[in-house]
C-alpha cells in the first residue's frame, strides 16, 4: 500500500517524458479545474486523468482505490456545500425543499436547490481530480527528477529539493498510517457510522499517532538528508543524468500547453460552469 503511492519506473511513454512535461500536464489539469465547476466537464477531466494514468501503467482500479482514504473529506465537502453554498440568483433557482426548515431553533434554515446538487457533485469531482492527478504525478515522476526539473525552471534549488523530499516522504507516512490502523483495530477501533462528521471524528485515534510518528520520522529524515550533504552547494550539485528535451517532449508539452490555455479560456468564458449540466437536465 505504501509503495502504491511511491514512484515506480514502469518504463511507459509517460515515464520516459521529461519531468517538466509531466509537471506541465499536472498544471494544465489543476489550472483548468480551478476555473471549471460543471460536473459533466469535470467528470470528463477526471476520466482524462485516469486515461493518462492508464497509459502510465497505473490500473484504473488502483486509481479508484487510492481515492478511498479521502472519501470522508470528499463527503465532508459535499455536506459543507449543501449547508453553505447558495445559487447566485436565488429567486430564479430551482428549489427542492429544506434540509433544515425555517423556524428550527438555533440553526438557520437551509434551503436545498437543484443547483446545489449539481454544483456539489462538481466540487466532489474537482477534489477527486486534484487528488488523482497529484497521485499520478507522484507515481510517474521520480522525486529527484522533479527537483532538478523545477530547479531548471528557475525555482530556488532549496525549494526544489524540499518538494522532492516531501513527495519521497509520502510512502513513509502511509506505512506509518497502516501500522497505526492495525494497532487500533487490535483494540476494536472501527468506523461504524455512515455519518460523515462522526466518521471524521472516528479517524482521530488514527490521526494523532500518525501525526506524532510522522513528526518524529520527519525530524529523522531531515537529519539524514543533512547528513548526506543536502544543501551543501546546490548550484554545483552533480547531475548524473542530464535531461534533454526531445521531440516527443516538445509535442506533448505543446498538447498540454494548448489544453491549459483552452481549458482556462473555456472556464473563464463561462462554458464549463454548472449551468451547462443544468441546461442538459432541462432546467432553464
Amino acid at each position: 500500500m505504501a509503495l502504491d503511492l511511491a514512484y515506480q519506473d514502469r518504463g511507459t511513454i509517460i515515464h520516459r517524458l521529461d519531468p517538466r512535461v509531466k509537471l506541465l500536464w499536472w498544471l494544465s489539469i489543476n489550472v483548468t479545474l480551478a476555473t471549471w465547476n460543471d460536473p459533466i466537464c469535470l467528470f470528463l477531466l477526471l476520466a482524462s486523468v485516469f486515461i493518462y494514468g492508464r497509459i502510465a501503467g497505473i490500473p484504473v482500479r488502483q486509481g479508484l482505490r487510492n481515492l478511498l482514504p479521502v472519501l470522508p473529506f470528499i463527503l465532508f465537502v459535499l455536506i459543507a456545500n449543501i449547508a453553505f453554498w447558495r445559487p447566485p440568483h436565488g429567486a430564479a433557482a430551482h428549489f427542492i425543499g429544506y434540509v433544515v426548515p425555517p423556524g428550527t431553533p438555533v440553526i438557520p434554515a437551509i434551503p436545498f436547490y437543484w443547483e446545489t446538487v449539481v454544483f456539489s457533485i462538481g466540487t466532489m469531482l474537482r477534489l477527486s481530480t486534484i487528488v488523482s492527478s497529484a497521485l499520478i504525478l507522484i507515481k510517474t515522476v521520480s522525486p529527484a527528477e522533479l527537483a532538478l526539473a523545477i530547479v531548471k525552471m528557475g525555482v530556488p534549488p532549496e525549494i526544489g529539493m524540499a518538494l522532492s523530499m516531501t513527495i519521497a516522504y509520502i510512502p513513509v507516512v502511509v506505512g506509518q498510517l497502516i501500522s497505526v490502523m492495525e494497532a487500533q483495530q487490535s483494540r476494536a477501533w472501527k468506523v461504524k457510522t455512515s455519518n460523515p462528521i462522526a466518521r471524521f471524528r472516528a479517524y482521530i485515534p488514527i490521526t494523532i499517532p500518525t501525526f506524532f510518528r510522522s513528526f518524529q520520522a520527519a525530524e529523522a529524515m531531515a537529519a539524514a538528508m543533512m547528513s548526506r550533504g543536502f544543501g551543501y552547494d546546490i548550484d554545483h550539485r552533480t547531475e548524473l543524468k542530464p535531461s534533454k528535451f526531445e521531440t516527443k517532449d516538445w509535442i506533448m508539452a505543446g498538447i498540454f500547453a494548448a489544453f491549459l490555455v483552452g481549458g482556462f479560456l473555456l472556464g473563464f468564458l463561462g462554458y464549463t460552469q454548472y449551468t451547462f449540466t443544468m441546461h442538459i437536465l432541462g432546467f432553464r
Partner: protein
Amino acid sequence: MPDEVQVYSLHYDKFAFAYGQEGGDEVVRDISLSLPEGHVVLITGPSGAGKTTICRAANGLIPHEFKGKMQGRVTIAGKYDSRKYGVSALSKIVGVLQQDPDTQLFNPTVEDEIVFGACNYGLPAETIRERTARLLELTRLTALSRKNPHNLSGGQQQACALASILAFDPGTLVLDEPTSNVDPIGSKEVLDLVARLAREEGRTTLLVEHKIEELVHLVDEMIVIDQGNVLHRGTVREVLEHVEYIDSVGLSVPQVALLAARLRRVGWPIGKLPLDVDEAIKTLSPLLEREAIAQLPAPPARHIQHNNKEVIVDIRQLTHTYKDGTAAVRDLNLQIHRGEFVAILGQNGSGKTTLVKHLNGLLKPTSGSVTVAGLDTKKASINEMAMTVGFIFQNPDTQICKMKVYDELAFGLKNVGLSETEVDQRVKQAAQDLEITHLLDKNPFLLSMGEKQRIAVASVLAMHPAILVLDEPTTGQDFKRSREIMDLAVRLHAEGQTIIVITHDMNLAAEYCDRVIIMAGGRSILDAPTRDAFLAQDALHASSLRPPQVTWLGHLLGYTSAWLTVDEAFSSLNSVGIGAGHGT
C-alpha cells in the same frame, strides 16, 4: 606520538548537552572521547544513556539541528569545530548513519539513494559511477539497484543506507545502532561490512551497539555509558572484566564472559575472561571432565507447565498470499494449547508476522482456516477478536491516541461497548497490575518511552484477552526494556495466560519460552520444546539462526541436553565441581 600533536579524526572535549531551548537535564555529561585515525570505538549503554546524542554531535546535528545547551567542544579532523561549521559541510568528513533505515531512505531506487550524497557534494560524475558500482558490489545490492529501497529487507536497507554514506567517502563513520531493526542474518551482513571497512580501509569508526557478542574482536576501545556518564572504558577485554556489573545494569553481554565471571567468582581459576565460544572452550576445557558433563541431567522445566489440553489456536492449511502475489505463509498447520508460552522465530520475511496477524483477524486466510478460542477469524467481528487476542506492538507510539492515560486504557473497552462501571473497574485493575496508577491523569505523550510501553501493555491487558501476542519485543528496545516486557509476560503466563512472542532474538526465546516454532519461507520448519529446538542444528542452520552462546558451548563440551541460560550453564558446570579445585 605525544598527545598534544596527535590529530584525532573525532574528538569530544568535555562534551555535555541538554535538549530544549531552556536547556533541561543534561543527557550527556562531561564526555571526553578521542578517535585516532583508523580506530574503532564501541559505545554501549541502556536507552536514555546519551548514545544517540553523542552520534548527533559528531557531524554538527547537535548543536545546529537539535537545539539545546551544549558545553565543551567537538572537533572533527583536528581542526573543524562543530559549532562553526554546518551539518552538510561536516558530514563530508564524518558520515553519520542513524538507527531507523526507514527514515533514511527517500529516493526511488537503491542506486539513486547511494548517489544522493555524492551528487550533493559535487563529486565528478565518473567517480560517483565507479564508487556506486563498487559499493553495490560490496553491499551485495547490485541485483537490486533499480528496486525501491523500501522493498528491501531490514539488513539490505541498512546496507543501502551505509553505502549512501560511503559514496562520498567520509574518513570517519559514526553508526548509531546500525542493526537495531535487523534480523540475525541482516545484523551479520551489516557488522561484517563495518568490520571490512574498518580493517581493510582503515576507516575511523564510532559504533553504538547493543549486540556486543558480535563485536568483541572488531573494536579497539569499548565505552559503557549510562545516564550521560561513562561507567567503564578500555579494550573490550578490560571492560568485560566488569561483565557482571554491566549485566546488572541491564545491558546485553557475551554469555560466555558472564558465565566465566560467575565461575571465577566461586573459585574457578580463570584468568582472562573469554570473549567468544572458542575462547570459552580453551578456558574451560582444562577445568572440566567431559564424561561428567555428558552425564549431566537436563535442567528442570523453568516455567509453570499448565498442561492444558484445550486447543486455543487451531490453524489448518493456512496460506496467505498478498495482492502483489507474494505467498507469505504456505500450507501451515499449527495448534497452540491454552497456557503455552510460544516463540515464533525466523528471519525477516519468513512469514511470522503474517502468521500472527491472522490470530486477531488483521489478515484473513487466502485459504485454510484459523480458529482462535473457538472463533473462526474469517467470520468473527473486530470486537470479538480484540477481546480474544491482545496484540502488543513494537512501538507504543503506534497506538497512543488519547491525551490522558486513563482514556488510553479505556479506549479499547469503550470500543467494544462495555459499561462505564466495567470500564472504570478494568482500567484501574490494569493500571494497578502495570504499576501505573499514579499516571492515570497524565498526558501519555509527555511520558518516557518505558512508561508509554507499560501504558500500551495495560490498555491491551484491560481487554482481558485469552492470548497475548508480543511483536518483536526486543526490536528497537534495549535489553533492559525487553526484559521488563518479558518479565511481565512471565507473570501473566504464571496466571494462565497464553503468550506468543514473535522474535528473532535467540537468547530471549531460549530464556523465556517453552516451545519454539521456527519459520522459513512461509512454512514452519521446526516445532519443538525450546530445549529440543536449540539442539536441532539442521533446522537452525536452514533458517540461518544461531543458538545462544551457552547452548553452543554446552554442545561443544559434550553436554547432551541444552543449556538455555547462563544460570543453567553455571548450575550444571558448578555441580560438576572440579573447576574450583584447580589451582585454588
